[in-house]
């Protein structure tokens, strides 16, 4: 186990290093820079600024300087909002995204697995069709439709919730629904199909014939096996959701991390591009790692060893 974790960590650091290098050079290749605007700066002022940021230096020197700062966990200052460090932007916006994200994940898991089990148990019945339709809706209607619909009916027309912002606990309801619609539907379908498969397996039949209670069978035998693919899905999903959704955050005016994935590139805010890219990658890898560990608990047959690098 210890060996596994050590190898994994080294592997993650190496990936981050490759990613940082690739992103650094890619973003320098795309045309434009942070100081472009409809109104151009006089050449001398522009040159002064480039000099201050070290952009007049050869690229490899800029790269070495950046990597040196990165090793010291200094992501630099945003080039668009010069009063904010990248660390600070990520810290404050991630806390908003994560709060909302965790709410959405809890809702997704409970509702998704719940619906999945119900429709599997009532396979082919009305309730199964009903949840299937719900799942199709969840998968096929994008969040930029669900969000504004909720906002319009529950916020503008009925006036139950604030249209935007996360000022009180009630304000979480609409964005959480919007954010979790897709994962609920996905998890429900995944759980359902696995559950149906498992319920027809020999060992369940044996358990049934032994006269065990149905609830006992479902919880101890069926669900444990049916849930494995869901756990696989949960890792990347969690990383996606807690780092914020561009669309949902924009619709509900939430000061989260999501918008920076696009804004930082539009503004050519180099330091922020690097910051959010690396942060997202790190979260994603940590989540995948957690998934691997979670397997061990869900399925005792799986053992983690350092030799196999992949999950």
């Amino acid at each position: 186990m210890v060996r596994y974790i050590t190898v994994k960590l080294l592997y993650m650091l190496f990936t981050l290093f490759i990613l940082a290098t690739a992103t650094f050079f890619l973003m320098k290749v795309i045309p434009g820079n942070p100081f472009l605007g409809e109104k151009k700066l006089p050449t001398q002022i522009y040159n002064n600024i480039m000099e201050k940021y070290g952009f007049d230096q050869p690229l490899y020197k800029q790269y070495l300087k950046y990597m040196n700062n990165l090793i010291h966990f200094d992501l630099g200052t945003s080039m668009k909002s010069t009063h904010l460090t990248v660390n600070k932007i990520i810290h404050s916006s991630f806390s908003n995204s994560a709060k909302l994200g965790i709410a959405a994940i809890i809702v997704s898991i409970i509702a998704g697995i719940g619906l999945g089990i119900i429709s599997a148990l009532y396979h082919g019945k009305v309730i199964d069709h009903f949840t299937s339709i719900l799942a199709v809706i969840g998968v096929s209607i994008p969040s930029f439709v669900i969000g504004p619909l909720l906002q319009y009916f529950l916020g503008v027309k009925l006036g139950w919730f604030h249209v935007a912002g996360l000022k009180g606990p009630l304000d979480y309801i609409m964005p959480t629904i919007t954010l979790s619609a897709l994962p609920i539907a996905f998890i429900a379908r995944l759980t359902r199909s696995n559950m149906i498969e498992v319920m027809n397996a020999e060992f369940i039949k044996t358990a049934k014939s032994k006269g065990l209670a149905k609830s006992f069978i479902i919880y101890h035998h069926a669900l444990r096996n049916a849930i494995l693919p869901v756990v696989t899905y949960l890792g990347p999903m969690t990383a996606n959701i807690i780092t914020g959704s561009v669309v949902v955050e924009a619709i509900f005016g939430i000061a989260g991390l999501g918008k920076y994935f696009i804004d930082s590139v539009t503004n050519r805010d180099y330091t922020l591009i690097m910051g959010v890219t690396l942060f997202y990658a790190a979260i994603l890898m940590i989540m995948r790692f957690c998934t691997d560990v979670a397997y061990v608990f869900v399925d005792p047959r799986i053992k983690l060893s350092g030799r196999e690098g992949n999950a």
Partner: protein
Amino acid sequence: MVSPKKLSLTLLASLLVFVLILSACTSSKNNDSNSSPTSEPSNSPTSSSSPSASATSDNNLAADQVFRLNLHSEPPTLDPGMAQDNVSGTVLNAIMEGLTTVDENGKVGSGMAKEWKISDDSLTYTFTLRDDIKWNTGEPVTAHDFEFSWKRVLDPAKQTPAPYAYQLYYLKNAEGYNTKKITDVNQVGVKAQDDKTLVVTLAQPTAYFLTLCSFYTYYPVNKAVVEKNPDFDKEASTMTTNGPFLLAEWKHNESITLKRNPDYYGANEVKLNEVRLSMVNDANTEISMYDTNELDWAGRPVGTIPTDMIPSLKANPEANLQIKGIASTYYYLFNLTKPPFNNKKIRQAFAMAVNRQALIDNVTHGEQKPAFGFVPYGINGADKQFREEVQDNYFTEDLEKAKQLLAEGMAEAKLTKLPKFELIHNENEGHKKIATAIADMWKKNLGVDVTVQSQEWGVFLTNRTNKNYQIARAGWGADYNDPNTFLDMFMTGGGNNDAGYANPEYDKLIKEAGSTIDQKVRMQALANAEKMLIDDMAILPLYYYTGIWMQKPYVKNVFIDYSGEIHFNKGYIEAH
């Protein structure tokens, strides 16, 4: 297996249609039923609820003097010397003040300075500061603060060089110092004679210098604070302010709260107790917040009302949509350095083959004015607005003439067929619709094929700067209230001259306008320059912008100025 899927899809589709119908019904119903009393002028004697009664008739003030505006995003900076955008400007205009102020009609009034003397050669301005002006820390604002602040903006070795330093190039030796040609900062034309007297020497006579003094780059910062803490602009607690409002709270990327400054010299004219600025980026969400009374204002100056919503909002009196001309021009650039648009007749043909009014009525919807010149409405001339004194009848839309000019131009350029060319614009739904409509007009009217290409902002700007285009979208807004802010950009080799226009006669006219403060002479020179620019069809003017916004009927005295910026310092909320 297929049919249940199909079935659920059909179900889903019908559900969606149903929802849409439902929403259409409810929205039209709610217009009459949900109506709060709109613009009720006489709200009888509730004056007891307004404690801050002063000389003016305050009996109509609401008890809660709070104004809520959406800023859309975090201000890039609140250091007035570093600012260069209207989000920052909107906040700075409320919390800080320069030597002068400008009213709704563009008239200059006193600010931190109570009076000034201008020397006979128009080069030396002697400002006398008010006695009762204080920083938020309680210390008096002095002439030394101004001297320090202006020199700080010009300092080429500043921690981060100020992008808008060139706004101060009107001062003697300012440009030289900022561009490192002069090392002695004392040669820059600003000097505090004593605490109350600031002497400013200009490089050349500048008719609009007093207006410039009200612009944020000219705002003072507290010398004592900034010398000790150059990062003063990071948080609300360390900011230095001297304006009608205090920066009470600044939650980065979330909200800003301003509070009335009781120590401001004109505090009794400031009625709003609080201004809440939110940072919600989505235009539709902003409108929903306005609908649910979470905002008192939506749209201009920092937001935009989506063009496809304008017609329905116009039809809805509840929305209280406002439209006002602002001093900006929407135009297309021709690349004058490459064929085919290095030929004047071809350019003229393209300019004449556009139906501007149709574009405004069917695409932009914002009551913009068709442009046949470059200087927009709202810009001052000698006595009246420049656009009223100088008609922009430089050319007319004329299809027959356009076709004839195109044929002649192509013959001159020895072309039998126009080469394939592109019209580029920066990624934006509005720009795309306009470009598509215009390409369509050219196709129909001139029989030419144009490819419309949408480009990402940075890519677009790089292409335009490098003259890697044939026709490109452009827009220009006023930096100060004078035609020069538009016309000087097309001087030969000018940094913003992306068209590549080079005309020594034109340069001469602009220089002539810059050498005197006789407004009659200046305006004549500038009018001649504009005529030359459009006669040469160096650019293709399309329309003069309008500012479009919604304001609750109880918001009073808040106005959008000539350039489209908002001023709420003297605003108030009427009882409603």
